């Protein structure tokens, strides 16, 4: 049984195949990626989001922060206010557009930072094992156990508020998960025959990690990355109550969602639109992630 599994694994091919030498990695990637219609649409949506984040100030129908109309509090969607009006008389559509900037920063940048650090730590822990593994993984265990709210209050107390610190805090929350995921994969990959072979011909540790092990961990990283974006937007919002990051009236999807909570029964549209914004963003990143993964993985051809 065990033997069988081992021999099965031997035949699995390493990252680089001979045919690839002919085309550059980029054209190869694009050739595969282009074929995936859904991923292309998702990519276009993400591009649109980035565009909105940059240009929101000029395209919003109302001032997202300073426009208010106390005569139509909590008004449902209408032609005048496409997504309705919130409890303070502000236009929700404008706030969603303006909120893209901070939500994307909190969602994307922080997770990217967390993924980068976490992946590195995971590779080191998994590849070297022993002392490295024990130390890194025990630190991760503590970070897992350490309540986020406590960490956040501490960061505010020591470093102060500010958007950068939100990114730092949310990144810190993500690091240990990425580290453990990558370490698990690394542990499984490093005993594969082709890696043993690479080592025996004198490839350096870093070459092996970068060329052979890292590509094998990408898929898990991408999956978690794209899921984590939504969670991070909501986490970042909860930090704004501790005086971190976006402060009112600056619009931010997670904070809008949270503010809508008390009006859920009487004005559900205030929660629905920010929730949809988060939903579509996360969906787009997931579809894009799948597409990228498929395009990057040489083993996978469309069936």
């Amino acid at each position, binding site marked *: 049984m065990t033997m069988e599994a081992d021999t099965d694994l031997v035949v699995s091919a390493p990252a680089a195949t001979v045919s690839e030498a002919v085309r550059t990695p980029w054209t190869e990637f694009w050739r595969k990626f282009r074929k995936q219609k859904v991923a292309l649409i998702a990519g276009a949506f993400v591009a649109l989001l980035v565009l909105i984040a940059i240009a929101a100030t000029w395209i919003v129908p109302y001032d997202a922060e300073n426009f208010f109309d106390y005569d139509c509090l909590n008004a449902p969607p209408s032609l005048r206010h496409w997504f309705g009006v919130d409890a303070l008389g502000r236009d929700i559509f404008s706030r969603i557009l303006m909120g893209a900037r901070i939500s994307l920063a909190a969602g994307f940048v922080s997770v990217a930072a967390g993924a980068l650090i976490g992946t590195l730590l995971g590779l080191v822990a998994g590849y070297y094992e022993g002392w490295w593994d024990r130390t890194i993984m025990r630190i991760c265990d503590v970070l897992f156990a350490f309540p986020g709210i406590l960490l956040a209050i501490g960061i505010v107390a020591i470093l102060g508020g500010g958007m950068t610190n939100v990114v730092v805090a949310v990144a810190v929350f993500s690091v240990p998960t990425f580290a453990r995921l990558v370490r698990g994969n690394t542990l499984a990959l490093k005993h594969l025959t082709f890696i043993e072979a690479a080592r025996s011909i004198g490839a350096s540790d870093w070459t092996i990690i970068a060329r052979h092990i890292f590509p094998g961990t990408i898929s898990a990283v991408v999956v978690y990355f794209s899921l984590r974006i939504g969670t991070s937007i909501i986490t970042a919002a909860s930090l704004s109550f501790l005086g971190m990051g976006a402060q009112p009236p600056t619009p931010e999807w997670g904070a809008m969602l949270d503010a809508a909570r008390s009006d859920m*029964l009487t004005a559900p549209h205030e929660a629905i639109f920010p929730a949809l914004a988060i939903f579509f963003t996360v969906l787009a990143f997931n579809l894009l992630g799948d597409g990228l993964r498929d395009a990057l993985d040489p083993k996978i051809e469309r069936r």
Partner: protein
Amino acid sequence: MKSPLRSLVTAALGVFSLVAAPAFAAKDVVFAVASTFTTTDPYDANDTLSQAMAKSFYEGLFGFDKDMKMIPVLAEGYEVSKDGLVYTIKLKKGIKFHDGTDFKADAVKANLDRVTNPENKLKRYGLYNNNIAKTEAVDDYTARITLKTPFSPFIAQLAHPSTVMISPAALKQWGSKDIAFHPVGTGPFKFVEWKATDYLKVARFDGYWRKGYPKVDTITWKPVVDNNSRAALMQTGEAHFTYPVPYEVADVLKAKPDLELVAAPSIVLRYLSMNTQQKPFDNPKVRQAIAYAINKDALAKVAFNGYATPAEGVAPQGVEYAVKIGPWPYDVAKAKQLIAEAGYPNGFETELWSAYNHTTAQKITQFIQQQLQQIGIRTKITLLEAGQRIERVDTWQDPATAPVRLYYVGWSTSTGEADWALRPLLYGESWPPKLSNTAYYKNPKFDADIKNAQLTTDSAEKAKLYKDAQETAWNDAPWAPLVVEKLLSAHNKKLSGVYVIPDASFNFTEVDIK
């Protein structure tokens, strides 16, 4: 002769059983409240809710009726000596504690001695200002309390929901700490059990001194934190009474045929304090401009769904000696003029902090931000988390460097009396970290009024002094007075006799259910 008598007896029994029958069916009521109880010991509680719940088993010498009028409860009445130092309190007779012992003057002594002894480290130690010299039991039903200095609001302290009579026998048995898990009082209900995560249950005390009460068998106090869940509990009939009802769901509950929504008046004042020791708020014109710039009616609509009224004075109506002065008019033109006169035609930037971080506070601060924007004042909002609030406001040591500027906060005067409504918030010696004068307001005239009012026992004189104090503070505008909120509760139409009183505590001795 026999048979008519027998039929009379039978008839009487029949009537009796008819009358009594409903009483035999268990009458269990459930109150859904907003947070868990911190303790059952009112002397060691600083939250209104725990004290309100403790009224199940505890009563004080004095108390408040449902309109916040002070009434004697276990006391018959009192007399003050001419010098204002000696209070002689006559007690009601024939009252028993749940443990069967009689309520006598030794209980007054035991309880006041307990709280005024720093060894016991009780949270309500400060309420009595370290001003009680001694408490004596003159005879079984007369207690005498001697003060160190005259303090005319003293009776109000005795009416405060924390000053209750705990059975001296039980105190001796359980000790000052453990009494919190074994409360024994004279109240209408006996303590049954407290499952901290779930509920606190009390049951009818048959020996209760007010004949005919209580009318229900048990009350289950159920803390349910989430507002919408509490509303759901009322709709399914799992709870019979709930407070508070969030302003946002008021309309939903109002529409339910079997529920009744009650908006009761309160003495909970919401205001925006301004640090009068710091530029630009040291200029009265700036402070007045801010008071003019905020539309209090719109605020009541935005944040309270209409369940609040603009503040009409420094102390809210319902507090004894409160004077109606306002409301402060909403006048943007005037505000702009004042702020220009003060030398800030283009406004300025400042900090706006909130003492709370719940959703209503979020709405209120953002609303104030919108309003002040109109006169050029740009504010940065921070909703202080409890620990931050303590650190940056309540315990800031040096007034000269205090970082607080605009500060949204509220106050409920649980003694129902002007001294506790004004002194902690505006008196020159009440600056943080001592008490809560977050405006760092100091006006010798105001301070003198407060001091003199404490010394006099003459009611007319007191009224005059407090009126002067309130008018002084109103015109100096260390605060922009905002609103007095209404207390929203809901109860099942079958339930009666439960009232939310103006300091957000409850009266429920007469609770009954059909």
